[in-house]
């Protein structure tokens, strides 16, 4: 269970507060106008940006001060998720060992993960030799081998075409449910939220609201969300 307790984020004259919990295994969309602080909220949860007040807890353990790599989560950014000079296999293997020293069992794990995302046979390709969708799959394979209970996605498929984006969303949902992982996904597209997210957090007017069931939210949106949806 992810708990965001009395969180206050400040950056120059930008201010955002958040106070909510996300149950284990839920897939939650984070939606709201650009500049509202969706990505900043993810930055704080993942440890790249320190809040001025409040705590981030995972299963009641305070992780507010932990280093990004030591938190029980994997994050997928909008871009630059893969190192262009490493092969698909190496990029995934980094999720097991940053020094890339792998035991045979670890190599097996990496191969299995690549198989699960549908990339068998492409282990030795570098990102430049993979399509956009395949690159996203490599990133997801790394999320799998890391095996962290929380997955943060910061508009990861925004650069993909509509059909491919839907395909990747379904893959995320499938993998997350199989792993019983909790997912927080920033998106600006209501369809993405409706497709895979049980619940949705609306970030607007300086507040990240507690998650509410996605379908109800879009059936009967509050005013600030209606303005955004148009």
């Amino acid at each position, binding site marked *: 269970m992810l708990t965001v307790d009395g969180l206050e984020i400040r950056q120059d004259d930008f201010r955002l507060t958040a106070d909510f919990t996300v149950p284990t295994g839920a897939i939650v969309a984070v939606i709201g106008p650009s500049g509202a602080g969706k990505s900043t909220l993810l930055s704080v949860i993942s440890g790249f940006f320190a809040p001025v007040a409040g705590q981030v807890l995972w299963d009641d353990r305070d992780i*507010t001060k932990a*280093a990004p790599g030591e938190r029980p989560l994997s994050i997928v950014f909008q871009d630059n998720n893969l190192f262009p000079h490493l092969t698909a296999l190496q990029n995934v293997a980094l999720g097991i060992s*940053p020094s890339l020293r792998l035991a045979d069992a670890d190599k097996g794990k990496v191969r299995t993960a690549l198989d699960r995302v549908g990339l068998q046979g492409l282990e030795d390709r570098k990102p*430049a030799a993979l399509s956009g969708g395949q690159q996203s799959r490599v990133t997801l394979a790394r999320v799998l081998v890391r095996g962290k209970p929380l997955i943060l996605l910061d508009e990861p498929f925004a650069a993909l075409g509509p059909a491919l984006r839907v395909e990747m969303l379904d893959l995320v949902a499938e993998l997350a449910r199989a792993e019983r992982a909790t997912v927080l996904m920033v998106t600006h597209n209501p369809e993405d939220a409706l497709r895979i997210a049980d619940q949705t957090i609306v970030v607007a007017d300086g507040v990240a609201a507690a998650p509410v069931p996605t379908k109800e939210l879009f059936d009967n949106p509050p005013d600030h969300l209606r303005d955004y949806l148009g």
Partner: protein
Amino acid sequence: MAERAQPLIRLWPGVGAALLVAALTLGTLAAVALRAEGWAGLTGSDWAAVRFTLLQALLSAAISTALAVPVARALARRRFAGRAALITILGAPFILPVIVAVFGLLAVFGRNGLVSHLFETVGLPQIQIYGLHGVVLAHVFFNLPLATRLILQGWSSIPAERFRLAGSLGFTTGDVARVLERPMLKATVPGAFMVIFLICTTSFAVALALGGGPKATTVELAIYQAFRFEFDLASAALLGLLQFAICAVAAAVAMWVQVPEVGGAGLDRTVERWDARGIALRWLDAGLILSAALFLLVPLGMVALDGVRGLPRLPASVGSAAARSVVVALCAAGLTVVLSLALSFAIAAMRGTLAKRMLEGVGYLAISASPLVVGTGLFILIYPYVDPVSIALPITALVNALMSLPFALRILVPAVAQVDRQFGQLADSLSLLGWARIRHLYLPRLRGPVGFAAGLAAALSMGDLGVVALFADPQAATLPLQMYRLMAAYQTEAAAAAGLLLLALSLALFWLFDRGGRINADG
């Protein structure tokens, strides 16, 4: 940012490198200072050296920038076949061995040179190349291209839309100059002037070859003479302090006027100029570009021509000198890369702005240190224990690495920052810290910049005729020193061949490293 384990492996080598640089610059200066015997010891000829140093630097900087403005303007507003090649060649003097350029200039402007012969046939007196003229001529040869590139960069930084707007408003060339170009020049020219002034104040090899005598001795040359001919350590020490003071003041002024970056980006861009279509302006620009190209290329052509002719007379001593030089250059390049990477990683890993600044400052100390002062200081420090002549080559490599360090830092510090901007968060989220981050992130991503920096360092070291002249064992000269000796002994053909070999080796080393860094690079 949340608390992150301090990546110690990225900090301590950089701190060590900074201490080494500080010891080599400030430490040797202190060693020199302890040897000096007060200002009363300065003779009239010492002051003459100071005056000459400042005068020639002032003239070289003024003439280089004054000529560079019209040449850069011509390059900025004309498109022609070979333009990109010419601009690339303008960057070449930076890695051109000084002694090779001096040889080429002598072949054109010297007593038996092309221009003298031309003058003779029309009954004009010979030109006198030795002395102030020659020193300034050589400095202009080296720095006119640099100034042209710096100022051309200023022109490229004016957005093309402004020239389009000027065209739509019917601006004349004069209007464009007043409204668009003069403000840019005001921001660019002082910086270019100061860089060249600073470079020329540490002139040694040019003064050694073309100056000399009581009227044309720079402080660096005076240090060499006091050391080499009179073995007057106290006098050399005092001159060393003077040289450091001159460099430090010039470097401080250079930082104050904001020196433009010597980058290559955007130089191959031309903008359509509606104001400069007149036939007279076209001829003017063509003449300027042609003159600049000839001034640059003819001396180098003479080196190639005479060199090929002299090849059969290449003495065996040149071959062994070349081998020594290559080894020294490779060591210097390796050392430059290790020191500058260590400093760049530490600068990127430091959190306090002050600490960052201090490390950067130490890196740039090398700009105001003169190689001969460092050499003199090292001599004073080591001669009680070791015969300095026996370790002349390692010292040369060390001092060469120190001299290349500021350039390498200019390349690598921004490159490391760029890698961190692009991949830092991803690496942090994967706990890619410490050595793993260096090995799997920095080194692969920095191959291009590291290759470029190593190429510059290798070429600069290959062509350096500085500290090696202080200690050199007659039996173990480097190639530039050997070439200088051949020239001094009037073995012109052998010197030409050695010059061609030196030029080829310098360019080859640069090319190999630079190429090696870029080949098979991933996006």
